[in-house]
């Protein structure tokens, strides 16, 4: 019976370590999801900034079509949508409910192409040279976009990214310290066993190996539980906010889960090795301090 009790106690200490590891790895995975989604969300915002390219009235249709094709093929363009002079007039008439062409006697509107940029080009500098290039073609009358909106989005994304990074770094540090402490405590409770092993002639490597293997096993179990919790969390969030589902990239998530497993293994490995190394280097008398 006491044998069972002893085994139960040892299993209990392993469970405590695995649970602590899984909670900390869940937190790291959660941070990873936030970082990935912050980037995706900011890219999403940036890629929705519309740049209106107004076409000269005297531009030939063939040249305009060529311009649109060139735009579609360029690195900085995500998508284009063209509206002819007539379509623009029709749309405005619908919006204001009056036949303004009849009133003015001509169509003052221009044909236009609405360009949506790739996220990395949706900034003031890139927009400046894109505008310059477009105006140089002589097909373009004007390039219209909200400079203040572009600047404001970029500034906000920068500020938010910086804070996410700072908070993530602090939480990462806390997480590492927590895992390290949990493992150190677990090894500390075995310091006399480690010393006895040394006194009967075991080499440092022979003593360290089973501790490290057990640490790695705990890391894998902890990562497995953390991933299950992350999947549950994502499932719950997607049910509550279905629009967030569009932002999730399965490949990114698979990579993130891979990183969580690797972190579980590496952190447990390093922490266990360092903790065992410490007690292997202590003299018997120093174990009591």
């Amino acid at each position, binding site marked *: 019976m006491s044998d069972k009790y002893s085994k139960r106690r040892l299993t209990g200490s392993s469970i405590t370590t695995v649970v602590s590891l899984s909670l900390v790895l869940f937190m790291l995975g959660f941070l990873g999801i936030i970082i990935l989604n912050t980037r995706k969300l900011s890219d999403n915002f940036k890629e929705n900034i519309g740049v209106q390219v107004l076409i000269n009235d005297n531009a030939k249709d063939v040249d305009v079509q060529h311009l649109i094709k060139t735009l579609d093929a360029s690195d900085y363009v995500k998508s284009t949508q063209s509206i002819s002079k007539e379509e623009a007039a029709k749309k405005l008439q619908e919006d204001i409910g009056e036949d303004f062409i009849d009133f003015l006697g001509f169509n003052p509107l221009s044909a236009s192409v609405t360009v949506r940029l790739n996220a990395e080009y949706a900034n003031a500098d890139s927009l400046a040279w894109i505008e310059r290039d477009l105006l140089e073609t002589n097909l373009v009358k004007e390039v219209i976009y909200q400079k203040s909106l572009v600047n404001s989005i970029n500034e906000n994304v920068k500020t938010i990214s910086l804070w996410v990074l700072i908070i993530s770094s602090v939480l990462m540090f806390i997480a590492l310290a927590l895992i390290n402490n949990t493992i150190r405590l677990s090894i500390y409770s075995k310091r006399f066993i480690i010393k006895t*092993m*040394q*006194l*009967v002639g075991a080499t*440092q490597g022979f003593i360290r190996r089973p501790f490290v293997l057990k640490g790695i096993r705990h890391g894998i179990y902890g990562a497995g539980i953390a991933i299950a919790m992350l999947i549950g969390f994502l499932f719950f969030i997607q049910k509550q906010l279905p629009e967030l589902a569009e932002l999730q990239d399965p490949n990114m998530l698979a990579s993130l889960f891979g990183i969580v497993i690797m972190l579980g293994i590496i952190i447990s490995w390093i922490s266990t090795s360092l903790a065992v190394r410490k007690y292997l280097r202590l003299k018997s*008398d120093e174990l009591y301090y």
Partner: protein
Amino acid sequence: MALDTIISLNNVSIFQKYNLVLANVNISIDKGEFVYLIGKTGSGKSSLLKTLYADLDLTEGSGNVAGFDLKSIKRKEIPFLRRKLGIVFQDFQLLTDRSVNDNLLFVLKATGWKDKQAMQKRIQEVLDKVNLTTKGFKMPHELSGGEQQRISIARALLNDPELILADEPTGNLDPETSEGIMNLLVEISKNGRAVLIATHDIMMFDKFPSRTIRCESGKVIDSMANRP
């Protein structure tokens, strides 16, 4: 150092951190000798033993145990010195997280044994020597103090060491059990192994008289210092 000398200390000073515990220690013990290391609590007996199994560094003087130079021994070589020794402690120091058999198996594996059958045979042999052949499956805490100390001695015998160092092996035991343990150690000594036993149990000297090394006032006094 003579061929049959197993322990040799010359002008050794033993320190605990920066405190001098024993000064000018000169000891020579031959193979097969049974020697008491006596002295009051805190007189330096355990420190002397720890120096012999390289748990305390030898910083002053010179020393040799089972062919290992204690002053120049490297950290990596210490396990190999300890494989030539059998160490018995007052508090037994068994691995509390595994059975008696697994305690003994650990030592054999740690010291390079590979053959499972040979290991099982050796475990049975040492358990037989200490009359505990039926207790191999038990956990250490399920055994009495005397039984735990016998297992500790069985563990010390596993690799057939040339020297047994016993630090107060009867300190936690009742007089009757202590006598049994002492009988066992004397028997081991008669089989050709040197036994150095630290104790302050003066009753034992009358029952098992032998050479005595006394730690007193920071010095070591050998009852056979003037032997030819």
